[in-house]
């Protein structure tokens, strides 16, 4: 195996874990999925039409649920288009079907097919149709084809996973940079809360509240993010100029930022913001992909390029790998560290804005404990806490691993307290596997 391939596997080894998890949850959530969309209806109609030379007479039978109702509509439309005659539509219990069949039998004429769902198609009234209603002939019971497909892999679910993790993943970009330089930023959760509160408050008090314009909302969000960047800058300055360990500085900032968030919001949730504010957090404009997910992908792309192709990226790795050697090679160590903490602050601010957009309000309780999930994503993704190595895309994989585990546990109905235990154990296992995989340095 070539050295390059081996290195690629080594750098992104957690991808194997992610795929394995995906496989496991796919297996655990495998189910008969019967389609109930237009495509299925079309196929059924085509199938019915194929069987009958003349215009087929069809009974549509579904249950009384709204979904089935929509399906019945689809069937009616498709059958009409296909040139069939919809004799009756039954929406309800088997008794209704029996009554409808009696009516058809009395009116005379045959019945060519019954268009039903998986459920209704297996009603007793239909299986005994030939014996109970001989006058109708032998109508075919047509149901939508069903496939076995994991609930986990349904596109709705996958997009849901991505959307759930978008905030944490975006914040983890900044955290990755900080950790690569050998530091840590414990303040990101509180900064997200502060940002959400500030954005909401700026919209409510200065941009016109519920009547705020897009420009006003944008300004409010940018202002909130900028404040978080400043706090990050303050952290970075204290760390580089005063030599206080990052753990202490960012721990203190975490408390300060949280307090400020509570003060700025008077402890309440600020909700006087326009409906259009949810565009970022809930909208999906690009091919049905949630906007937050698109933003996440774009930011990860940019961050990856920064870390792997730019001078600044090199400096970040060098400072983390051997600060003194970097300094003696002319790297502007202080500026590089400052950048990392400012970036972390800005991205935490962005995370808070997205949360505010998702929940259409800003509250100081947002982002509680987020720093732990963010750090977990970074570490699970293969970045060493000691600094000097790690890949941005690895963090994305780490974030997805966490999200997949939570989603998978939801789908398999594991209750939330157990989920926490499982998540903690999985994080341990992932990091352990990573350490065993790497040769001891």
């Amino acid at each position, binding site marked *: 195996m070539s050295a390059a391939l081996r290195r690629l596997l080594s750098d992104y080894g957690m991808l194997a874990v992610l795929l394995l998890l995906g496989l496991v949850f796919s297996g655990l959530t495998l189910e008969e999925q019967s389609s109930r969309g237009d495509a299925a209806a079309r196929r059924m109609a085509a199938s019915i039409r194929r069987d009958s030379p003349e215009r087929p007479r069809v009974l549509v039978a579904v249950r009384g649920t709204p979904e089935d109702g929509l399906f019945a509509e689809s069937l009616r439309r498709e059958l009409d288009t296909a040139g069939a005659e919809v004799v009756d539509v039954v929406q309800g219990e088997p008794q209704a079907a029996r009554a409808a069949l009696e009516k058809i039998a009395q009116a005379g004429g045959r019945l060519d097919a019954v268009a039903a769902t998986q459920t209704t198609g297996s009603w007793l009234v239909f299986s005994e149709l030939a014996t109970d209603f001989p006058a109708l002939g032998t109508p075919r019971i047509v149901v939508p084809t069903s496939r076995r497909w994991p609930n986990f892999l349904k596109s709705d679910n996958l997009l849901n996973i991505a959307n759930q993790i978008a905030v944490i993943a975006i914040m983890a970009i900044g955290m990755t940079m900080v950790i690569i330089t050998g530091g840590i930023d414990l303040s990101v959760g509180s900064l997200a809360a502060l940002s959400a509160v500030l954005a909401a408050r700026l919209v409510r008090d200065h941009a016109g509240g519920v009547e705020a314009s897009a420009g006003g909302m944008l300004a409010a969000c940018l202002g909130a993010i900028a404040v978080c960047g400043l706090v990050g800058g303050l952290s970075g300055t204290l760390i580089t100029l005063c030599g206080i360990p990052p753990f202490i500085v960012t721990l203190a900032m975490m408390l300060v930022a949280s307090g400020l968030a509570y003060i700025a919001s008077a402890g309440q949730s600020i909700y006087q913001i326009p409906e259009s504010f949810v565009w970022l957090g809930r909208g999906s404009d690009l091919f049905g992909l949630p906007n937050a997910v698109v933003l996440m992908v774009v930011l990860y792309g940019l961050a990856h390029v920064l870390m792997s192709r730019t*001078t600044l990226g090199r400096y970040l*790795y*060098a400072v983390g790998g051997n600060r*003194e*050697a970097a300094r*003696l090679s002319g790297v502007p160590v202080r500026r590089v560290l400052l950048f990392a903490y400012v970036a972390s602050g800005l991205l935490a601010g962005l995370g808070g804005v997205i949360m505010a957009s998702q929940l259409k309000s800003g509250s100081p309780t947002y982002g509680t404990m987020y720093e732990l999930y963010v750090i977990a994503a970074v570490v699970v993704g293969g970045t060493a806490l000691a600094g000097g190595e790690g890949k941005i895309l690895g963090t994305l994989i780490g974030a997805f691993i966490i999200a997949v585990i939570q989603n998978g546990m939801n789908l398999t109905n594991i209750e939330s307290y157990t989920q926490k235990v499982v998540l903690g154990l999985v994080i341990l296992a992932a990091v352990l596997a990573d350490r065993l995989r790497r040769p001891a340095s």
Partner: protein
Amino acid sequence: MTAAPPLLAMAGIEKAFPGVRALRGVDLELAAGEVLALLGENGAGKSTLIKVLGGAHAADAGSLAIDGRPTAFRSPQDARAAGIAVIHQEFTLVPGLTPPENIFLGQETARAGFVDRGAERRRAADLFARLGVTIDLDAPCSRLSTAQQQLVEIAKALAFEPRIIVMDEPTAALTPAEVARLFEIIGELKSRGIAVIYVSHRLEEIFTIADRVVVLRDGRNVGGAPIDRLDRTGLIALMVGRDLADEYPRRQVAVGPPRLAVRGLCRGRAVRDVSFEVHAGEILALAGLVGAGRTETLRLIFGADRRDSGDILLDGRRLDIRSPRDAIAAGIGLLTEDRKLEGLVLGRSVRENFALPNLGRLSRLGFVEAGRERRAFGRHVDQLRIKVPHQEERARNLSGGNQQKVVLAKWLERNCEVLFFDEPTRGIDVGARHEIYLLMNDLAARGKAIVMVSSELPEVLGMADRILVLHDGRVTGEIANGPGVTQEQIMQLAVA
């Protein structure tokens, strides 16, 4: 009448580490109440011998006897139990603990797991009283002066009634008054029958305090004598007397105008008013013993440490150097003494290490031009004959010689006009050494100004055009290198 066996007798002690034979059969004897001075150049084997005596290393061969009884030490505790105490050059005190706590660390007087602090404090006070000094018993050791810390170390050594105390460079950080006090204490120890092995480079001190001298060279005991039978010259001859067996490449020396000039460089006690010039095409060696201030001087010029005062001029123009960035921008490069700790980011690839100070010219608009970088590094790999399987190899996987070449490539790419080589061939095999010497000659031939710090006198004599000798932070002399210059001359100035 049979003579009493000596207190300590070491015979044929051998110790080898990967790549170097530190001790090649050392014999040493010590009598009770005697002060023995142990002398030798850097790398002669003094530290290793002390570590063997102290139980930190096990000798590969040889014997050790206390009072005529053969013993073997498997750990420092064994040595301590046999009555040997070692006071190292770097203090081993825990800064946050008080003197009594440090003194009894590891051997606390305890009852059922609870430390008897009162008893410890009393014993500590007693020890200090016998040394004739007063130390604040409740202050954490970090708040004590260096001299006081050393007294705590001595008390720690005395706490378990040793019969032999080894002192490694005890006066390096003491004022003359404190040195005098230390000598009084040593006199006191002598009168109690305790033997002292005193390791130092400072010949004046040796002549004051020692009864006998033993000189180590290249891992062997090359001679010992009572102090009254030796003089400075004799001592120095014993220390260096070795032939220039190594070959150093010849070169055409064409020295040009002065390029780098430093005046009045000062930093605390490490560098005291150092001034010198380096010319184009010249190799200037900074010689001296460990702690003389050679590396510190280079670091000051390079901006790695902040200088208290002094001027640095390049081609007559005063440089404002406040960080390595400034020095590098001015065209100065530093190959550090410890390439693993300060010269390379071991976890990154050799290509990235090479590029680190050169990213400015290997990138555009902040983006590294990968192709350019690869080609540039490739050129140096060829020219310097760096042995790497590929450019992505992690720096930590290379041999010492190749690592040093990568470091050199870093600076060559920058076309530095002034290059500082700090111990350029330390830990490098003979073959790679020669290559590095050739490279240095080539750089000098191209008009660069080179300053080389080296602890190996043969290397200094073989490579340098001019030799500047430092001692205790000051320049003690300057020698123009030539056929008649000897290692003794340098050593004379180095021990001042």
